């Protein structure tokens, strides 16, 4: 798990924020995806975009569902650490 130090690390969030944030995230993606799929039926140039979005959304769904890169407040590892001292430093 990435250290919370530095801009590259995941910052802890509350479970409520996770729930609401996920709803907003996939709500927006869902609407955008539906519009894209409809557009792709009529306009060929949107077809690769729709395919890409589908693949991307599948990956994002998996990541958010498994909380890959998402941390909760109060979980082990939420003690804070100095910038540049975490695992991301070692590379």
């Amino acid at each position, binding site marked *: 798990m990435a250290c919370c130090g530095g*801009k590259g690390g995941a910052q802890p969030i509350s479970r409520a924020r996770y729930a*609401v944030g996920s709803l*907003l995230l996939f709500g927006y993606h869902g609407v955008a995806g539906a519009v894209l799929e409809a557009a792709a039926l009529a306009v060929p140039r949107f077809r690769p975009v729709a395919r890409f979005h589908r693949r991307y959304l599948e990956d994002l769904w998996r990541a958010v569902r498994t909380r890959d890169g998402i941390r909760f407040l109060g979980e082990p590892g939420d003690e804070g650490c100095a910038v540049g001292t975490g695992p991301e430093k070692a590379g």
Partner: protein
Amino acid sequence: MIEISLMFSGGVDSTVAALHLAETHDRVHLLTFANGYGHYGFGRTKRRADELMARAPGRFVYHFESTRALFETIALKTLADDYARFGSGFVWCLGCKLAMHVASVRYDRAHGLSRHTDGSNADTSEMVEQSLISLSLVAHFYEDHGVAFGPTDYDLSRDEKRAFLKGSGLRMGLPLRDRYLGIQPSCIPGELYYLPYLLLKRPPRHPERVVAGYILSKRPLMDRLARGEEA
């Protein structure tokens, strides 16, 4: 006459850059690009450019251009393969920005300009196109086409920029956290890509080696396009 071109959205960063550049240059060319895919609201940019031109007549030139064909050639034609190869949605945003850089080089060469800049900022370096690795590789691209490139005010904090802009008397837009709405174009794919970061604090993954790999894989194509050759 000392001239420079600036990639311009009308937002805080590029407006502050434009104001600063106008202090040291006789003419600043404000370049705005639209990729044609969920990128909208360019009237806002035009209004900002009009504000600047009214403030300092003759000092600014505004240029708007579609980069749709360049974006399709550089990013969309290989989007699925690039996504599989580089494993991140940044292939959309960075591909878009690379198309804009190609368009900038073309503009600079057509107008005899030898310097180009943008409003990239250290405070928003989580955005792939504003990361140091991206900026440094893009600088090489410009250099190879006879144009010097470097961001203006990269280390000036967003707070300092906001304070400067407020003091300038220009429109600020609707404040939302550290952003201002309604003063620059919107990009739906860009919003979707950075939304996990904004909502869930899930940082976008832009390992330097991967970002560099993407840019370098596009360089031969970008070079041909910048020279006006067929892709």
